[in-house]
Structure formats: structure tokens, C-alpha cells
């Protein structure tokens, strides 16, 4: 996302905002393809869409350097895409193809792209926070100015790993940006009902971590806050950034999410970050046609990618036995 590097604080210039807009549409178009793929039975495993949360991905990952490390969750397509992963390889992974980021071994929940320092989505809620701490410890030991960004949901702050990771990062003053993507739900549960006290931010502060809070659907401010947070982390200390957003789909592509009040959803739709970004761009003078062209281009790109990916070759079956381990690797079919 090199093209978004120029901006200056909340006075986001038009080009920068445009780039964000484009990236948000790319994420959404990617995931809409993936959802259709799942419905068609072509994408196999569970797909957790981040539709409605794209602003966090663009603002956080768009401000990372290519060599900064990223750790994501089960809901990580957007983060990974903005970090710079090839959407074709990602789509192949969802479709279980040989050219997938993980050769088809991981699927949506385990996308990783070490070439861009994306160290993995994770199927275990809260597991990435502790992994992030170790990566940061390594970077600090190397004297590097790279940082680690670790994104997780509001549900993850109730797992013990949250305390262990933040405590450790603070004690060792490690360069980790912890990002809580608070979409109000953990699966079908309203997280607030099961989260005591003032939530993630209060916990971060109590753990000695500098903490910022932001509207997670408002790109310009979020961009500024993320940029500032990243600068502080690059300065050598951990920061927790809590972003408030909303998941416009179900927990998975199969989840009708009937547990959400209709009014809540309707209100959230009004705050759809793509819509809000479009409004800002209109104010900045963009024509409807220009906006529509960005959307159309993103959709075209992803549709084409999907089509290519679904015709891509499957992995060879013998690859089921590779990359387990060097010593003691499976050498033969055990039956």
C-alpha cells in the first residue's frame, strides 16, 4: 500500500483517501467472492468475513512497513490483503489450491505470507497476542526498527493470553502494536455482556500499556491515530489501539446472525466505513462516476482472480506428507 504513505494527520489528502477507499473495496470484493464461493461449495472451510471492518485493516496495515510483522485472526483477509499479500494466492488458499499462500494446507483461518512478514491468521482466539510478543522480542534483540502489529477481536480480551501478552510486552518494552478490533460480538455473543469493567482499553492501561481509542469506521481519524500509534511503537514501546467497529455479516458466511436486533444492524449500515469514506470523497470533489469506477475495478479484479483461482490446480496428494518436520517426518503411508 505504498501509495498511501504521503498523508499528514487527520487532514487526509484526497489521493490518500482515494487509496484507502480503493483498498476497502478490494477487501470487500474479495470477501464477497469468497462468500459466494462458500455458498457454491467451492470454498471449503469456514469463511469469517470482515465486511464492515475494512477501515481498521486499511488504517492499521496501510501504515505498516512491508517488513513490519503482522499477526492476524480468523477474520484476517482484510489485514493480509492490505499488508500486501497477493489476492490470487489468498483466493487459491481459500479454494485449497496448490498456488495458495500455504499451498492449500491452511485455508482461510491459516493464511500466512512470510514474504511480506505476515506471520499468520490464527484459528485459536487470543493465541496471536503471545506469539506477537516473541516476535517483538526477537526484533528488539536484533536492534531492528521493525515493529509487530497484532490484531484481535473484542472477544479475545477475555482470554488470559491478553493479560500475559500485554504484561510481558510492557515489562520488556517491546515494539508491539496491539489492535483490538471491537466489532461488539464474539460469535453470537454480545461481548460487552461478558466483559467486566471498562473493557479492553482499561485493561491495557492497568497493564501499563499506553492505550488509544478510535472510531474504527472513520478512516481519516483512524489513519491518523494508527499512524501516531505506529510511530510510538517504532519508538520502542507497546501501544494498545482499541477500534470500535461492527461486523456487517454473520460470524461466518453461513451465520444468518439472527441474534442481532434489526435496528442495530440498520444503524451500523449507516456507518459502513466504505459509505462514510465515499461521502468524504464526495465532499473532496470526487464524481459519482469516479467512485463507481473504483468499486467496479475492485469487483472486476476479484471476480477475475476468483475465476482464475477456481481453475487453478489442486495440490499433489503426496504433499500431504511434506513440511511436517525434518527428523521423524512421515516417510510412508502408515496403512
Amino acid at each position, binding site marked *: 500500500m505504498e501509495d498511501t504513505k504521503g498523508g499528514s494527520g487527520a487532514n487526509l489528502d484526497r489521493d490518500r483517501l482515494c487509496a484507502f477507499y480503493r483498498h476497502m473495496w478490494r477487501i470487500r470484493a474479495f470477501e464477497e467472492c469468497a462468500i459466494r464461493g462458500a455458498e457454491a461449495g467451492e470454498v471449503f472451510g469456514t469463511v469469517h468475513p470482515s465486511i464492515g471492518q475494512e477501515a481498521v485493516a486499511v488504517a492499521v496495515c496501510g501504515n505498516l512497513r512491508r517488513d513490519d510483522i503482522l499477526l492476524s485472526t480468523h477474520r484476517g483477509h482484510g489485514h493480509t490483503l492490505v499488508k500486501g499479500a497477493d489476492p490470487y494466492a489468498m483466493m487459491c488458499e481459500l479454494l485449497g489450491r496448490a498456488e495458495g499462500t500455504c499451498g492449500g494446507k491452511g485455508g482461510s*483461518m491459516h493464511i500466512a505470507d512470510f514474504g511480506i512478514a505476515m506471520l499468520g491468521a490464527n484459528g485459536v482466539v487470543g493465541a496471536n497476542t503471545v506469539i506477537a510478543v516473541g516476535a517483538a522480542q526477537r526484533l528488539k534483540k536484533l536492534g531492528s526498527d521493525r515493529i509487530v502489529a497484532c490484531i484481535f477481536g473484542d472477544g479475545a480480551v477475555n482470554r488470559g493470553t491478553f493479560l500475559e501478552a500485554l504484561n510481558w510486552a510492557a515489562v520488556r518494552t517491546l515494539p508491539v502494536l496491539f489492535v483490538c478490533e471491537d466489532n461488539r460480538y464474539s460469535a453470537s455473543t454480545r461481548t460487552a455482556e*461478558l466483559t467486566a469493567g471498562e473493557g479492553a482499553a482499561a485493561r491495557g492501561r492497568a497493564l501499563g500499556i499506553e492505550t488509544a481509542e478510535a472510531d474504527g469506521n472513520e478512516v481519516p481519524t483512524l489513519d491518523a491515530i494508527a499512524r501516531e500509534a505506529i510511530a510510538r511503537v517504532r519508538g520502542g514501546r507497546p501501544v494498545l489501539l482499541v477500534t470500535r467497529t461492527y461486523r456487517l455479516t454473520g460470524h461466518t458466511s453461513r451465520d444468518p446472525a439472527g441474534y442481532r436486533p434489526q435496528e442495530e444492524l440498520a444503524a451500523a449500515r449507516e456507518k459502513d466505513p466504505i459509505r462514510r469514506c465515499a461521502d468524504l470523497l464526495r465532499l473532496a470533489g470526487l464524481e459519482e462516476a469516479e467512485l463507481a469506477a473504483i468499486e467496479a475495478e475492485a469487483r472486476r479484479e476479484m471476480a477475475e482472480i476468483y475465476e482464475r483461482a477456481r481453475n487453478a490446480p489442486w495440490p499433489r496428494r503426496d504433499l500431504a506428507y511434506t513440511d511436517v518436520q525434518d527428523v521423524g517426518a512421515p516417510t510412508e503411508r502408515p*496403512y
Partner: protein
Amino acid sequence: MPRITYLEAGRRALAEEMRRDPDVWAVGEDLGRGGVFGQYRGLLEEFGPERIIDAPISENCILGSSVGAAMTGARPVVEMRFADFALCAIDELVNQAAKARYMFGGQTRVPLVVREPVGLWKSAAAQHSQSLEAWYVHVPGLVVVMPATPADNAGLLKAAIRCDDPVVYMEHKDLWGLEGEVPEEVAPIPLGTARRARTGRDVTIVTWSAMVHTATEAAERLAGERIEAEVLDLRTLWPWDREAVFESVARTRRVLIVHEAVRVGGFGAEIAATLAEELDDRLAAPPRRLGAPRVPVPYSPPLEEEVRVSADRIAEAARALLRS
């Protein structure tokens, strides 16, 4: 007899136990909405939020608090969602639940049921597909149950809930939709009793959970070749029904042990070793085992297929065993 699904059978059994015994409660993430698979559907409405307890994502506390509740007279049914996530609560299960009764000299019991859905299921990949029953069999203090049919999922769940010690109760995710006959009145099935899923004289296939169906399919194929395989569904892994297995194997003189879990260090090894040690003179061939290769579960269908124990492979192994 009415036909219902494996899922519905478990749901009903739990509801019946909760009606029977006010000390039974269920706890886990998203239970109020019916659980991830729907296996708790409607229970909140009937039993209220004090007995269908929604938990934060905090496996240590879900399982650990259930140990405290069980020691004070509750009989918690603990939902772990996927067996893989139970790994976040292994200290509570193994160091606390399993040992409390012994360590405290018999002053307490820990009657809880830990539900851990296992197995391969729709490209769920490495962190949502494990079958680690062998671990729990190795842990003193635990009972391990793995139902294969709707009727058993009702009768065994009831027995597990009534058991005064911690039970690891592993449903197979691929079986939720399986239909079968379940009597209106389900009696608890004594823990530790196997079920003969198919009668045969030529070879005994000892298996459990979803593999019972795969093995039965293989047996039917073999029947076309005039090989009659007996299929024993172990149902309870600890304690396992040695009598039933010994009786059958002594009769057929050949035994194939089949499980979906990784073959190396799987529970099949315990059975095979036991049979080799204790039934050697009655065996026409050494016990054989089938299980997954020692690789994490891959996502892509052809790879997943490759590591799956299939009816073909079972039939092939049975034939080889008969030739030996």
C-alpha cells in the same frame, strides 16, 4: 421407533438429565444461542441463564470454574466447542479435575462432563480437526466416551452426566446430522460396554466414533467378497470393554483396529499391545492398526482425503490381514 439426529439425541438427553437433576447445568461459549452446532437449541428457554450459562472466551475459566462447581455439588456439562480448544484448558482438566479426588484422599468428586467435538469436518484444517482421545485415556481419573450413533449419543451422554468422575465426552462433528432410531425413553448406557455394530466370523474390526460407519461400509463391501467382518463399536475408550473385544477376537482370530486419530501413539496401540500380550495364542495373525499418518490435518480436500482413513483402506487392510 422415531428417527432423530445424533445432534438432537444429545440435545434431548441433556434436557432430560437437566429436568431430572437440578444440579446439572451446562456452560460454554454461545450456549444461549444454541451452541455452535445447535446442540443446545431451546435449552436456554427451558432452563434459564443460570443453567445454560454463556461464558466469555476463557477456556481456563470455563473448565476451571466447572471443577469448583463440581466439587461443591453441581454436575456441569462443559462445552469446549472443538476438542482443539480444550487444549487451552488442559491444566484444569488434567491437573485439577482428573486428580482432585485422588490427591485430596477421596474427600471430593469432580462429576463433570467435558464435551469435546472431534474429527475431520469440512476442511476445518489443523486447529479444528484433532482427535486426541489417546491423551485422555492415558490420564488417571478420566473416563473417555465417544458415541457413534444417535441412540448412543443419548444413552451415553446420560451415563456420562450421572458419572461421579470427570468424563471426556467426544462427539464427532461429522455425525451431527446422522439419523437413527432412538427410543422415546432412553436409558443410560453403562460406561465401558462395547456394541457389536455388525456380526462376522472372519475378522474383528475394533473402532469407535465416526469410524464405526466407515468400517461398517468397508465390512459391507467385504461381504461381497465373502469376507464377513465383525465391527465392534467401543463407545467407551476408558474403560474399554476388554471382555467384548477378547470374546470377538478369540472367535475371529484376526483383529484390525481402526481410528481417525493419528496412528502413532493412538489408542489403537493400547488395544493392539494388550491383545498381543494377552490373546496371542488365539490369534491367527498379529493385530493390525489403521489410523491417520503423523501429519497435522491439512485444509485442501485432496490432502484431507489423503490423510483420511477411508472404507477402501479399511477393506484393503482387512483383506491383507486375511491373507496373512
